[in-house]
């Protein structure tokens, strides 16, 4: 009964979403505010409806309703309740409901804003957000229904269907479920998908406003100003999702790294790249009235890549074109992406002449020119990523040959582009809008450039002779020094002008121009992350060996000694094989104990290799108990990695979020504030009366 209720609510939500789209278009065409308001209310109804359906699904998950095929596939009796709840987005059908739920939440939030000044955008924002929600709900209604149940026919066959496939069929109740994929039981993986999805759906909002601007012909920068914070929030969530995914890969996948250029990773990275380019590029439109056409292209691309990323990961197309062809949702996704992309581009072409820049660029070294160059580099990385992901599919279609485009391709192709981006990050903050020359930039750059060179020379004599790594360190030092110098210069100037002390001046600077200084904090964090990425890529060392008890394995400055091993069953029914190893430095000093382990999940019949880690600022000792040989007291195989500097990546990512929060912190809307102030003044005399 509950399954029918859940499915019924989803069907109603789908119809309401379609009504919202239709009413918004009709209301706008007939200039009927009442009909548009009806569309808005329908939009607002979506979130409660989908919440109700989601609540039903969660109840089914928690209460072991294994007759529901989705519940059977992603849960089992042993799983703790919190994992049963997170299993909601652990399987395809549930994750589509989750997507729709988040989308409707964001769409509701945006329709609740004050629309007085932008009334003409409202119907079209409703159309885009409701249509996107309707698409995902449609997938749930027609293709991937999480409420479908198992039925046993008279012939004894088990059939999955929402309703009884025959009058004689009865609901089939399996005694236990398959359980969630063990890879998805890690805390990082529990939070990672929601973060990515939040990033994905919040990018739909700026896209919706962009389309509204194109349709209405209101081609000033209003749509960008309205959506600036939405874009930053989208970027925050997407970045958070990417970092969590990297941390999860590092802790759970057991290959000693955090990024493997896997197509699924790249699917999430691509909208991040265009989103980052967009964040920089909109500043040029706000400040200089330039690049209106380009900003439209970027946000259309970002939206398309959001849907494309979901398409890549949800349709099986990455594993094989045959899987895609067999996938029920693959072709539908394909059509939706094609429809939205072609419609968006058609609208853009229609409005192209109205989107010309209001002014001219004055210098190739102005900040706007450097931001454009930054955009070119981000788009270049995107081209490489897109082509690397798509080429295996093209190869399979045209030659029938399956190929792998792996890390060596991406590393080689993107490294120079990332280096160029870092260099731009170093000089762009020193340039000014409209005009900058080699002289003006050089005068403020040379001190940082020289100091960075000194640091690099010191590193050459004390740390490494690897030329590529030294170039990387030079660029990192340059960006860090330039950014810190910028903080110092601004704080000093403010302190001189206002007689504040430098610390107070620095603090007040953040309040004065949060976007600029939040952006600088993000630049600093990016460089700390770059230290970690460079460290693990350039200096990682590894070894593997089978040890008898009390034997040692040495790598770099570390040595591990195999102390003992234990096998036990954990409370959640995992069968754990846990080794104890002592860690010593190269002088034989005891540093601590690590517990690498292998978890076997009987319900999923899958092993997980969980490393023992000893993180320091200098490096991370990462020990795996690998299953090359059966582990026992007689001998066990260990793989050790020393990952230099990698922990700066995680430190940098924490600072990164601080930077985004500073940049996205709401300013008081000046027009709203002045309106309030006027209202207050107007009220005062009447109060006096």
């Amino acid at each position: 009964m509950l399954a029918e209720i859940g499915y019924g609510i989803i069907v109603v939500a789908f119809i309401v979403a379609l009504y919202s789209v239709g009413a918004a278009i009709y209301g706008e065409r007939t200039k009927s505010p009442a009909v548009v308001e009806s569309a808005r209310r329908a939009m607002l109804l979506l979130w409660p409806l989908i919440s109700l359906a989601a609540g039903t699904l969660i109840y089914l998950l928690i209460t072991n309703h294994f007759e529901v095929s989705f519940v059977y596939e992603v849960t089992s009796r042993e799983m703790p309740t919190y994992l049963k709840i997170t299993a909601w987005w652990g399987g395809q059908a549930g994750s589509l409901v989750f997507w729709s739920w988040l989308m409707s939440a964001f769409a509701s939030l945006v329709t609740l804003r004050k629309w007085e000044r932008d009334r003409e955008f409202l119907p079209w924002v409703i159309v885009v957000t409701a249509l996107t929600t309707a698409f995902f709900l449609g997938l749930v209604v027609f293709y991937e229904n999480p409420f479908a149940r198992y039925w046993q026919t008279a012939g004894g066959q088990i059939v999955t269907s929402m309703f009884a496939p025959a009058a004689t069929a009865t609901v089939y109740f399996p005694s236990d479920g398959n359980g969630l994929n063990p890879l998805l039981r890690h805390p990082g993986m529990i939070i990672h998908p929601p973060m990515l999805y939040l990033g994905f759906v919040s990018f739909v909002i700026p896209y919706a406003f962009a389309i509204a601007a194109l349709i209405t012909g209101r081609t000033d920068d209003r749509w960008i100003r309205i959506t600036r914070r939405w874009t930053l929030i989208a970027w925050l969530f997407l970045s958070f999702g990417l970092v969590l995914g990297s941390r999860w890969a590092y802790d759970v996948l057991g290959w000693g790294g955090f990024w493997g250029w896997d197509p699924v990773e790249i699917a999430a990275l691509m909208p991040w790249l265009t989103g980052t380019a967009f964040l920089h590029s909109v500043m040029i439109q706000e400040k200089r009235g330039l690049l209106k056409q380009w900003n439209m292209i970027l946000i259309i691309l970002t939206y398309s890549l959001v849907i494309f990323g979901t398409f890549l990961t949800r349709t099986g197309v990455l594993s094989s074109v045959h899987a895609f062809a067999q996938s029920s949702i693959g072709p539908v996704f394909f059509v939706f992406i094609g429809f939205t992309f072609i419609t968006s581009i058609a609208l853009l072409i229609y409005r192209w002449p109205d989107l010309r820049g209001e002014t001219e660029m004055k210098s190739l070294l102005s900040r706007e020119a450097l931001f454009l160059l930054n955009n070119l580099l981000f788009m270049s990385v995107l081209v490489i990523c897109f082509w690397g992901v798509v080429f295996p599919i093209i190869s399979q279609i045209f030659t029938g040959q399956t190929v792998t485009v792996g890390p060596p391709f991406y590393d080689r192709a993107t490294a120079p582009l990332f280096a160029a981006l870092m260099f731009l990050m170093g000089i762009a903050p020193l340039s000014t809008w409209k005009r900058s020359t080699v002289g003006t930039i050089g005068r403020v750059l040379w001190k940082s450039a020289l100091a960075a060179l000194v640091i690099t020379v010191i590193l050459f004599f004390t740390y490494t002779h690897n030329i590529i790594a030294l170039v990387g360190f030079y660029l990192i030092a340059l960006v860090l020094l330039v950014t810190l110098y910028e903080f110092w210069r601004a704080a000093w100037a403010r302190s001189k002008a206002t007689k504040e002390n430098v610390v107070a001046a620095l603090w007040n600077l953040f309040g004065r121009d949060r976007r600029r200084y939040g952006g600088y904090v993000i630049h600093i964090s990016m460089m700390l992350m770059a230290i970690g990425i460079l460290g693990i890529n350039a200096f990682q060392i590894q070894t593997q060996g089978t040890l008898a008890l009390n034997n040692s394995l040495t790598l770099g400055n570390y040595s591990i000694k195999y102390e003992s091993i234990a096998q036990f069953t954990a409370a959640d029914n995992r069968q754990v094989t846990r080794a104890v190893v002592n860690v010593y430095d190269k002088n034989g000093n005891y540093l601590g104990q690590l517990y690498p382990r292998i978890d076997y999940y009987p319900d999923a019949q899958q092993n997980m290799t969980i490393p023992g880690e000893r993180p320091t600022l200098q490096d991370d000792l990462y020990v795996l108990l690998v299953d090359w040989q059966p582990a026992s007291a007689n001998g066990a195989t260990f793989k050790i990695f020393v990952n230099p500097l990698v922990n700066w990546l995680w430190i940098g990512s924490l600072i990164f979020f601080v930077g985004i929060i500073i940049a996205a912190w709401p300013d008081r809307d000046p027009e709203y504030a002045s309106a309030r102030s006027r209202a207050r003044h107007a009220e005062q005399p009447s109060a006096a009366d």
Partner: protein
Amino acid sequence: MNRNLRIALYVLALGIVLAGLWAVTVHAQNPTPTDDEVNRIAHQLYCPVCENTPLDVCPTEACRQWRDLIRQQLSEGWTEAQIKQYFVQQYGVRVLSEPPASGLNWLVYVLPPLIILAGAFLLFRAMRGWIKPPADSSAVGSGEEAPKDEYVERLEEELKKRK
């Protein structure tokens, strides 16, 4: 043939046989390759049955057997290139971490740089078209004529306005 010569020939023949046996034994006793040697090659190969998983870290039973095969091939004196070639012949080019540069695969390597260069060219051309010399050319004409510390001046100006 006198007896001494015959004995000498027997000894020589025995010596040759023993030397040959010794050589064969030495060849067969190639030291067992270490896990690191196996991993170095396995890392460059992708699991033929899993998705995007290098062979050195793949936990499946099939991959464990393939790693054993690499170890055996190394102990038999196969070179890295021969082992990779063997896997390509057996399972196709998907086991390589990059497609070999032949046929349609050339597109993997050629297309992105072409697109990027075209993008750079278009951008450069567009920027040249956009850039108009400022009316007051002396302001940008040379670094010498630019303000001494433009940023600080601008900041101070803004602060004064705010006071």
